């Protein structure tokens, strides 16, 4: 996946939406910008499969040596799959954040919320501002 094609939450999670049968599935990860800011990752806590989350809920945690950040769900829905191998291979998260470093898939229950997410250009602008 190319970062240009994704949607972003202000809290630095990316979202890729696919249609699976009748439902929309959001694949979620962490942006390259956020991973750079976190520096060396040491720990990742994934959400449990089957959990219902609301957009903006904390559904996991990512930890570096000096900082810890909550992962916020960009969408409302049910967690249908997680990248279970990822916590043991944190290198994948840094090396391929938009591919092998995906974190969870959520079955979207409110598509309208996708409009609250940022397009790549707008997200880049936000990052540029935060960088200062």
């Amino acid at each position, binding site marked *: 996946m190319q970062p240009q094609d994704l949607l972003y939450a202000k809290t630095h999670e990316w979202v890729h939406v696919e249609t699976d049968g009748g439902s929309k599935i959001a694949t979620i990860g962490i942006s390259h910008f956020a991973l750079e800011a976190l520096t*060396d990752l*040491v*720990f990742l806590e994934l959400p449990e499969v089957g959990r219902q989350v609301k957009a903006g809920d904390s559904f996991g945690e990512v930890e570096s*040596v000096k900082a810890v950040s909550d992962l916020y769900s960009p969408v409302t829905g049910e967690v249908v799959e997680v990248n279970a191998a990822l916590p043991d291979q*944190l290198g994948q998260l840094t090396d391929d954040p938009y591919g092998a470093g995906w974190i969870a898939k959520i079955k979207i229950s409110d598509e309208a919320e996708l409009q609250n997410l940022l397009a790549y250009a707008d997200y880049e602008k936000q990052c540029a501002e935060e960088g200062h």
Partner: protein
Amino acid sequence: MRNARATQLLFELARPGRRSAQLPACDVPEVPLDDLLPAEALSPAPPPLPELSEPELVRHFTNLSTQNMSVDTHFYPLGSCTMKYNPKRNERLASLPGMIDLHPYQPSATLQGLLELLDGLQQMLAEIAGLPAVSLQPAAGAQGELTSLLIAAAHFRTLGQKRTKVLTPDSAHGTNPASAAMAGFDTVQVKSTPAGFVEMEDLAAKLDDSVAVFMITNPNTLGMFDRQIGEIAKRVHDLGGLLYLDGANMNAILGITRPGDFGADMMHFNPHKTFSGPHGGGGPGAGPIAVSEALAPYLPVPVIVRDGDRYELEYDRPQSIGRVRSFFGNVGVLVRSYCYLRTHGPEGLRRVSENAVLNANYLLSKVKHIFPVPQGDRCMHEFVASGARLKSDRGVSAMDVAKRLLDYGFHAPTVYFPPIVREAMMIEPTETETKETLDAFAETLFRITEEPPDLLCEAPHTTSISRPDEVRAARQPVMSWRAE
């Protein structure tokens, strides 16, 4: 000179069959163990502890000790920690058998001297705080915070008020929001000005009748006294809230101003800072609290009561929040505090603060030419310099400077706290340092800024280890030794 053999791990030095402790033979009739305890309760073998001789142990630990910097050996300007000299007389007196070999459940008739001492300490702390009621029970400053917030919660419960929030400035110690969470409150941050003062507009915006407590550190974590404190207290009180003073920085104001007089309803002391209790490599401290008359009924039990010449421990206090620690608290630390306060008296305590503030301002006046001090030219007992310019000009971070100081025989300041100053270096010299030491420290700081960045980024060079790989330690945590 370093004895690297002796500082191998205990478990590597150990050899089966070596002994240190020697126990007497059993002088009561021997009964087979199986007759005394059910077999399923017994362990088949004793715990696999290491086996060493006494001389090896002494050499091991003595050599390990030399790998620490300490107040006895080095200048230790670790901001916010008040690393002042730890008086030796206090160590001796706190170790008198009549002070130390006392069981917490002894009858009070056999404890009259200690209870008198603790009562005297309570009175002195109440006077210094300007708040009448004291509990010596909390085991550390953070536990004092928690105890006070639990008292606040009980107080509002009695009043039938539902208050869910605790306000803290964004420059607060991390313990403040953590304590608030443990006491069941939500924390709301109030913004600070660049000098670390409370931003009054932001306070006004966030203060309402759902706020139980505003927790403030004054002097604040930048070492500045917030002049607005009277107004802050008034605003908090007008809405029925309580003002909590984090007493971490009491060393600046002993006998000069009192929290109770500037509007605090409750506070904790850090006797291991302000009253010279040894820091012990990370504890024990203590966290006695002082509260207003209205909050006194909620103090933890037991409390010392005096009946004529006799002291008793009172447990029957129906409004008490209960207990936060077993027994009576960190009494050994409190005995040292008592010794410290009795050594100084009223004038001496004031001199402590005057000289702590003098030393800090003197050092500030030198350091500001090397590292900008964003808060200005004046401070109380500590100040925060910023390494941001050095970082952008030469790529040398505050941490690099801190590490290089170790090479010159100085402990580092606190770095990267408070979070509101970039590349923060928080420097607290304390009153027990000489002018010559402060001069030498400032000269060294200057010298370091002249050194090549490569040298600094690799520092320290002379300590027993170079910089540790903290990522590795956190990614694959090894938290105990295991036999291979």
